[in-house]
């Protein structure tokens, strides 16, 4: 039985949740629920809507560009472990009590607050045949001929991934930094007294204790990677997914179907398929990434 005080607190808590929940209900949950039946129609906003059954899904599984876009989105997941690894190292670095460390914390965070469109345009220039990247690599003697990174089908997607990694590091670094600061210092001190070196402390103490944060960051990062849109759309303009769909991701293709072709029913079906894929990956991540934090030692 809850005491009267606790009951009042609980009521107050619910009261505080209601406004946010209402906003979510109107702008998030309702569109989701509306999107589900939409996937079974030929909805185009401007024409009469008809129920088409499983036709959109049938079309999706036979659509080579959609299959390619899903594949590209899955390849894009490569950024997830890369971002986690680098941002953990960055967090450890800026967690030191050094003079001027605040500057580095801010500097690493700058890409996060930079507009993705502006950043993507700048990166696009850098990746051009006569861009600064080729200039630097050629000056260092690492490459002979300049490479058009965004025009080479085998390279373009990875070039765009670099932008995602660059942009995301600071954000995840901040989460890991918060995680690091929540780790009780006694455990690390105890390990040091027992003779563990700096690397061993990081590997056996810090990272296992950060595991709940790794799971959280990986999940957010995974969802962002599968939904990647801005970088691809801006860097491959005026032909989204260029060259010849080598960089087409599921979000860009869904957007193109919805807002270029007004094929909202089909786009909703594509969105549903992608969300099911995200769900499966998330369940796997939950299953294998759950153990961590203090439970690691339990």
């Amino acid at each position, binding site marked *: 039985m809850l005491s009267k005080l606790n009951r009042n607190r609980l009521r107050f808590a619910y009261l505080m949740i209601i406004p946010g929940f209402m906003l979510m209900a109107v702008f998030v949950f309702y*569109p989701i629920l509306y999107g589900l039946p939409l996937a079974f129609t030929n909805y185009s*906003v401007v024409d009469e809507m008809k129920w088409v059954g499983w036709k959109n899904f049938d079309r999706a599984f036979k659509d080579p560009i959609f299959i390619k876009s899903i594949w590209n989105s899955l390849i894009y997941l490569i950024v997830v472990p890369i971002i986690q690894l680098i941002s953990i190292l960055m967090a450890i670095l800026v967690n030191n009590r050094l003079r001027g460390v605040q500057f580095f914390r801010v500097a690493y965070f700058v890409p996060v607050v930079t507009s993705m469109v502006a950043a993507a345009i700048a990166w696009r220039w850098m990746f*051009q045949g006569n861009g600064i990247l080729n200039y630097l690599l050629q000056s260092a003697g690492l490459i002979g001929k300049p490479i058009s990174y965004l025009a080479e089908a085998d390279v373009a997607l990875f070039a765009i991934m670099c932008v995602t990694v660059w942009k995301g590091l600071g954000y995840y670094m901040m989460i890991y930094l918060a995680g690091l600061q929540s780790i009780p210092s006694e455990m690390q001190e105890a390990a040091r007294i027992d003779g563990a070196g700096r690397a061993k402390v990081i590997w056996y103490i810090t990272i296992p204790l950060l595991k709940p944060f790794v799971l959280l960051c990986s*999940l957010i990062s995974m969802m962002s990677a599968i939904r990647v849109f801005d970088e691809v759309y801006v860097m491959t303009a005026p032909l989204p997914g260029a060259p*010849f769909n080598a960089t087409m991701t599921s979000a860009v293709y869904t957007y193109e179907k919805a807002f270029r072709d007004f094929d909202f029913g089909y786009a909703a079906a594509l*969105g549903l398929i992608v*969300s099911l894929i995200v769900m499966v990956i998330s369940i796997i991540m939950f299953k294998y990434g759950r153990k961590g934090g203090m439970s690691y030692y339990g």
Partner: protein
Amino acid sequence: MARRSRLTAVLLAVVMMMTMVLAACGSNNESSSASNSAPPTGSAQQSGEKSEAPKENVQIDFWTLSLSPNFDDYINGRIKKFESENPNIKVKWTDIPYNSAENKLLTSIAGGNTPDVVNLNTVLALTLASKNALVDLNAEATEEQRSIYFEKMYNSTALGNSAYAFPWYLTGAVFMYNKKIYEEAGLDPNTPPKNWDEVVQQAKTIKEKTGKYSFVYTNHILADLRELGVPILNEDKTKVMINTPEVLKHAKWVKSLYDQELIPKDGVTGKYTYNIDQFQAGQMAMLMTGPQFLNRVKENAPDVYKNTGVAELPRLTQDGDIVTALMNVVIPKLSDSHKEAIAFANYITNDESQLEFAKVVNILPSTKQAAKDPFFTTEADDPESKAKVITAKQLDRAYDFTFGLNRENDIIKAFNDEWDKMLLGQQTPEEMIKAAEKSMQEKLDAINAEFK
């Protein structure tokens, strides 16, 4: 307990994920009710009934693309004149940014606030027409209203026996070149190329002497093929016909330009955007596009502008049609004042309005009488004026490329993807033709199956 909270956490996470992925595809209920329950007033019969009795106090919502604030005086002046001649009609003008036209229009239609007259490019007009969203002007406009335009331009938005837009303004294409780079390469800056052989020759010299690229091949390839006499589709639009010697020859020629490194690979993906950026930066010698970009060069790179020469665009053939970027005005079916909307759309695109507009900005008219005005043959010394005279000569050959098919963008994209693959060395011209033909045929079959 721990198990239950884990389950709750998983459920919450799943909901969040679905939220994030699906939110972009969601819509609102009003939109469906608007498109379902609002009675479409666009059928010819209904409109015909309306046309018997002129309405009192009609308001026409007129949307344009990126014309404000530069042309406020011109548009407001035309509206005022129209209103004085048609006292029962009031026009409310709204200008929307070019890039958000689709979203704004959809949101507006979904919210039940359909504009009556909308300025759209041909691709978007055709996309909306294929969704049954626009008034068929062959059915609802009068012969007098339709006959003022160049026929090729009026037919740019034709699907079958219907046509869905009044053509408005257009821009031709000119050859712009950086005289300074020509001088650096030892070329005569007053002798621009007259044909494509000379373009290639000059590009080779420029590359050798300065290391700079000259151009990006920005031509609409399917329009190139049509200019070269390739039918592309058979007469009843059921079969793709691109496996011809002309296509192979053209493909080999364009590919050779890339193989000789006369065109940068970045141009395959960046197209005209890349070409314009590089031209403005003084890194590229030639720019083959609409003269309206002269203004952009003038603003962004005054030094390059000072050295920019303008000449006639080299053509693949001497007498072929010329692809142009056409702006149109359409009337959405959900407008409840078809007759008045058609009258205003016709007015804002008539000879008088277009001639006045052309005098304000470097565009060309789509109406026959306006094009005959001496204004289009009078040349001053500045690049813009030269460009105007050059492009005005192209008017009777100008058209906006279209197959007159629903969802034809799918077919064009299928071709372009295979073409780009070839340019980037992923397949030979012979393989490209086979792959493009197969891919285009699949799209064509799907379209014909869906819209028959």
